[in-house]
Structure formats: structure tokens, C-alpha cells
């Protein structure tokens, strides 16, 4: 069974959480921001867990124009 990556709107309160993302980075150097992004990606990957979904996410991030 392969689960599908969700590419339609799925976030609660999108404006709020997007602002939250920017706020989290505020005042950080480029290096600190890069490190934060990396930690965030790993945390989210673990939360999603399923290999198939993550593989689709990697593809979607690499070539947003496809699919």
C-alpha cells in the first residue's frame, strides 16, 4: 500500500504558521538558519515516517513543475 503525498491545501491556519516559520528564523545568521531548517526537516520527516510519502516529497521539492 503506498500512501500519497498531500499536495492540496492541508494546513490549519496557513497564514499563522507561515508567519511562525519566519518568526522562528528572525535574527538568525545564515548558518544558524540553515541549521534550524535542517533540524526542522528532520523533525518533520520523522513525524511523517512513511518512506513512500517522503520519497514523493523529495521528488516534489526537486521538480515542483512535475505532477
Amino acid at each position, binding site marked *: 500500500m503506498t500512501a500519497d503525498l498531500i499536495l492540496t491545501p492541508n494546513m490549519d491556519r496557513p497564514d499563522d504558521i507561515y508567519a511562525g516559520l519566519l518568526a522562528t528564523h528572525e535574527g538568525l545568521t545564515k548558518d544558524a538558519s*540553515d*541549521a534550524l531548517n*535542517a*533540524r526542522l*526537516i*528532520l*523533525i518533520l520527516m*520523522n513525524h511523517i515516517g512513511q518512506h513512500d510519502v517522503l520519497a514523493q516529497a523529495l521528488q516534489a521539492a526537486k521538480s515542483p513543475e512535475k505532477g
Partner: protein
Amino acid sequence: MNKIFEVPLYPYRRHADQDALSPAHHKVAVIGAGPVGLAAAVDLAQQGVEVVVLDENDKVSFGSRAICFAKRTLEIADRLGLGAPLVDKGVRWSIGKVFFDERKVYDFNLLPEEGHKRPAFINLQQYYIEEYLVKRAREIEAGGAQIALRGGNKVAGITDHGDHVALSIDTPEGQYEITADYVIACDGAASPVRSMLGLDFVGRVFEDNFLIADVIMEADFPTERWFWFDPPFNKGQSALLHKQPDGVWRIDLQLGWDIDKEQEKKPENVTPRLKAMLGDDVEFSLEWVSIYTFQCRRMEKFRHNRVIFAGDSAHQVSPFGARGANSGLQDTDNLAWKLKLVLDGLAPDALLDSYDAERVFGADENILNSSRSTDFITPKSEISRVFRDAVLDLSEHHAFARPLVNSGRLSMPCTYDGSPLNTPDALPLGPARTRPGSPCPDAALGNRFLLDGLGDRFTLLTINTDAPDSLTESGITVTRLALSDQDDVTGALTARYLGDAPAAVYLIRPDQHVAARFRAYDDTAIRAAIRCATGQDIQA
């Protein structure tokens, strides 16, 4: 200080072959008396195959080199008759600590699965394994096995004549020739045999150098594996501390690519580095220092007609995960019984192609694992370092990140999925870990162990079901090992071999890998499985 690597164990002696009018003939010639060549020779000789081992040297390998031996290797050693001395001498460990920058980020306990005769790992200098193998060779020779170790015998020429191989050998007293039915080339990563035959060895060089030092000290560091990423005493690099027997400690320090190897190896440069790591007040002496560049590569094919490559000559991996020597011993475990059947005329020569298929598959698995470890330890780009450091930072606080920390995935035996010797799985409710192709996991049976009852020959393992005590198919005799719930005092047998099935019949190869499994004994199906596992149908 351990001087075993200075003692000639099989010094050059003139042999009658050197005075023969025409080249003397041998069944099998093994080139190289490293751990892999010695294991191949002991395995074959113990099974009644005449074998001669040629090595240009006459001692165990210099320095400890491989130090971490996995359970599967110890099980193979049991079959070869030297498991007990290895385990008695080796250091057991199960706690590991991971440090990042100035702090410890976490520790782990390997908590090995219960119900195995042998521990998950032991640490032991490679020279002990070689010494015990030489001893074992002498012991079986005294018992009548035809095994000869010839030191000071350097193979200088090799010609495959199609139906036999001719070797020319340099000795302190000049050159002589022998012929052999088959040659096993265990002559190490720089394999002169490979070069003489003009064969490839392709792969990836990691642009990095590691200082490997064996240090003797009376320190109260615990028996644990300590791994540092980016420590203050080796900024931007990594370090490892691991204990061996006799108060010897293995220290690995990553040095980077642009270094002067000869300079770095000098004690006056090594000592300050070690003091920075161990502390100024720790007294130590250096036993062995080496600088190592890692490569991950393999030959395209391990079998070239009558010349068969095993160990480092066939494949090389980075040492993270201890896959060098461990995988070499799995090569000979795989090869010896096949060669024996072919030499005895009980299996077609094509059975040897399955050595190639199975061990190339194993080498690729090892190369994949050790490349990934190396990429984690030595990030190859800025972004991979960012992710690596993020994993380490998270691992301090969150368990989820710890499985991503990769300082070496310790060597596990390979499951030969897709091997031409496997019969499709006919035990649908059986556990995945014992599907055809799997190495048999051990299981405690009261005061004995399952694996002690397997090996060297084909076995029919029956659990809770009936079968003949022995059967012969195509000249190959298979003996039954009958077990039932009564033997399964710990439940390990059921968990590992039955799963949800009430009963099972396993056909097990001489190297303790599963060839086929069924719900019950079916004469036709078992006979077909024996033919398949011995390559009888490949030729047809």
C-alpha cells in the same frame, strides 16, 4: 608489548615440489595466508580437500588491523574449530557513547538478542585470529588433513590452462612451479594475482586519511566504544576509541586529505595528538601506527574460471562497520563447500558461479553500508555537513534522531535473496528472517545450541513434523536434525523458525544458509530443492 607479529609461524622450508621433474599437482592452491586464505584452507582441508597455502611472508599480519569481529564470523569460526579461543581471548562490549563537539550526545546499549551461543561482537586483534587459524591448520594436519603452509613462497606467475592452473613461485632458493585444479586468490587488496591476470578493481576512493594507532595503556576508560564527531582535540574531524585485549586500545583519528603521511606517522607527531585526546597525565606507549586511505571497490566478477578471488583481493570497504575481515570470512564460508562438491564430482562446475552471484551481492551490500557511514562521518558537501550536524544536535534530546547517527553499521551477514540456489519460499507463515537465502540464526535449545548441530554438510531441519533420518539425492546425502516444541525451552526456535506455522522443514546448506523451507516433508519437493541448491539444474 605483543611480539607475535615478529615470530615466523610458517618459515620457508625447502619442499620436494621444488625438486620435482615436472610440476607437482595439487587440488587447491590458496594464495595468501591472511585471515581469509587461512580460513579457506582450514575449511577445505577439514572437509577432506587437499590444499596448499602459499605466502610470500611467514608471519601474522603486522599490527592489529581488523579488530572487531561479528557474531557470524564467530559462528563460522565455531564450524572451523576455533570459536572458543577467539571468544575467550576477545573483549566483549555492548555500550557505545557518541560525542559531538565538547559534549556527550547520547549512549547506547546494543542489548544483543538472547538465545545465541556467540556474542554480537568481540574486539580482537587480527593477528590473534591468524595465529589461531595457523594453530588450527597444524592441529588438523596432525589429525591427517592434507594442508600445507608454505612461507617464503611468493607467487610470481599464474596461467589458467582451462582445465588446471599453473603457478610459478619465487622462493629464497629460486623459482619452481606447481599446478592446481583451482586457485583461491586471497592475496589482499593490492592483489598481485589480479594484476597478473589484468583484471579490474573499480570503485571510489574517499579523499581522506585516518591515523590508526594501537596504544598500550593502563587507563580506566571503560570497555565501551567511544566515537567523537568534531571533538575539540581534533577539530572538524572525527575520532574513535575502542578496547582490545592485553591493555591495547585502538584509536582512529581522522586527519583530512592534504597531509604528509610520512610526517604524520612519526611518533613525535602522533604522541601530541594522542595526549590532546587522552589527557596529559595518561601514560601510554605506541604499539602500531598506520595511516589509512579508504576505498570502496570490488572486482566485477570474483570467479575467473579456475581462479577465484576472496577477501580484500575481491572487494575493499572502508573500515567503519568492520566489514573487511568479517566479509572475507563469509566469502570462504560460501566457497568451501561448493568447491568440495565440484572437486568430488557431485556438482557441476557451474555451482561456482553461484559463489560469484552471492558474494558480489554481499560485497555490494557492504560497500553500500560502509559508503554511507563514511559519508556521514566525512560529509562531502556543505549541506551534508549541515544535515549531519543537525542529526547530532537532535540526537542529544530526541530519540528519533539516534538511528540516523552513523559511525558504522556493524557487520551483519547477508541474506542471499534472489540466489539461483534458493527454492521459492513454501512456508508462508514462517518468519521473514529465515526465508530462503538467510543465514540461520542461532537458537538456544536447553543446554545446547542449534548452530552446533548444523554445518559442513546439508541438513534437513524438521520442527514438529516427520521425515526420513537421511536421504541421498544426486549423490548428496542430507541428514535430518529433528526438533520439536519440547526442545524449544526458550521459545527462540519457534520465534525464529516457525513464526505462525505449526511445523516446518528446512533444507540448510553446509554454510548454514537456508536453501528451502516447507510446511511438511515432501520427497519430490525436497529432492528438487537439493538439486537446485547444488546447481545440478544449472548445467542441464
